[in-house]
Structure formats: structure tokens, C-alpha cells
């Protein structure tokens, strides 16, 4: 069992959370000018780094999306913080 920290609720069990996306993805615009390859890349491809990463997670019981920085090797979460008023 691992605890993640929701910026609003505080520490909760990992089963209350859902991975949403790697942070920093920007939706390609305008849609009409975006190639199928670019859409595919946006939707399906991730950096999947080994080590430190920054991701968007959702705390399911309260619904909040937030940023979490963690290590994909050690699973240590260094920080999680609110996305309110910030870029993802």
C-alpha cells in the first residue's frame, strides 16, 4: 500500500487515485490543421521516463486533478500540488 497526497484532502490510499496523463502535454490546435500523426502522438504517446517524472493524477473520491512528482523506479512521491491557477 502507498499513500498519495491530494492537495485538498491530504494523504489517502493509492486506490483512491487514478493516473490521468504525463504533465506538460498541450492539446494541438486548431484541430482542423492537426495531422492524424500529431493527434495520435498527443493521445497515445508518452515519454515514460525512468526516474523522476511529473504527472497529472485525479483523486477519485473528491474529483480533484493535481500534479504529482514522483520517481518511476523508487515510487517515492516527492511532491503533489494543486493545478489551480497554473499550467499543467
Amino acid at each position, binding site marked *: *500500500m502507498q499513500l498519495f497526497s*491530494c492537495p*485538498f*484532502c*491530504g*494523504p*489517502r*490510499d493509492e*486506490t*483512491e487515485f487514478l493516473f490521468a496523463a504525463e504533465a506538460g502535454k498541450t492539446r494541438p490546435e486548431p484541430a482542423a490543421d492537426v495531422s492524424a500523426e500529431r493527434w495520435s502522438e498527443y493521445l497515445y504517446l508518452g515519454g515514460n521516463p525512468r526516474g523522476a517524472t511529473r504527472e497529472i493524477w485525479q483523486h*477519485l*473520491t*473528491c*474529483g*480533484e486533478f493535481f500534479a504529482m512528482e514522483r520517481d518511476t523506479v523508487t515510487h517515492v512521491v516527492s511532491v503533489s500540488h494543486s493545478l489551480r491557477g497554473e499550467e499543467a
Partner: protein
Amino acid sequence: MLETMRDRGKFWTPVPDWTTARIERDGLSVRRIAGLGQMLISGDLRGAVAGLAPGVSEIGLWSLAEADSYFVRSARDRGLLVTPAPQHVAPGWREGYVATPCDDAYAVLELAGSGLAEMVAEATSVDLEAGSRSAAVLFAGVTVFLYRTAPSTARLHVESPMASYLWKWLDER
């Protein structure tokens, strides 16, 4: 008799007779509380509480509700206003917030007794003494709002369709 349509009734967990259903065992009793007023609020929570139920306290996870009416915080911008009886408020947008009466949307179970903490520890994995601003928590795998009305008496609100499952889960401990 010819079976013309499959009877899936037996597939589902039997629904208890809520008027009489009780779980009674050493250190724990459980019953359903009927008739409370429940209203989902989203948006400007402070303004909503001031407009709909001035003066009621906000409670979070495992907090003690000390009055008959209280506001159960579930998220940064949402919560459930609980009153002793349904309030007749037209659903929809107000000044900065949305109010949605949902008196029957959640079943309210009361768990009481000296074995309460042990039962809750089995159903959840959160540090109750540390508290949490949101009362929403996974309890036996389903999302509930969990708080107390006395030191050894807890209430949980669960979406009504999940009440039979949760009752069975509690009954089989």
C-alpha cells in the same frame, strides 16, 4: 413452467427491509437512518451555506457533527447539506452556487458501538485521527461520506444503489 425470460432478480444482492434491518453484534450495531434532508451544493460553498442554512458547521472526514444540521464537505467546491428533514428548495443555479435536493440519492447508515473504530479500520485505509477536509473516502471499495455524530457513533452516506452491497459487507464481517 416454461422460463420465457431469465430471472436475474436472484443475481443481485437481496435488498434488506430497511424499516427493520439491523446488524447487532458484540460492539457494533448498524441501522439505516431514513428521512434526513440531503442537498448537494457546488460552487460558492460559503455563500450557499449562508443562504440555505445559516450558521451550520462544516465537517470533514471523521469530524464530529454536533448539531442536527451540518455541511459535509466532499471536495474543494462541493458538499452535502444535511438537515433533520427534507428542505423544499427548487433545484438549480443560485447566486454563485448550485443546490440539488437529493434526499433519496444517498442511503445513510449509522454505525455505533465500542467496535466502531475496528470496523472502520477494516473498511478504509485512511488515518482517521489525522482528519481530512473531505469526508469522501473509499469504504469497503465504494465512495462514502464518513463522519461521526458522537465519539463512538459514525454516519456514512452511500449512493442508494450501493446500500445493499454495503449492508451485506457489514453484515458478513
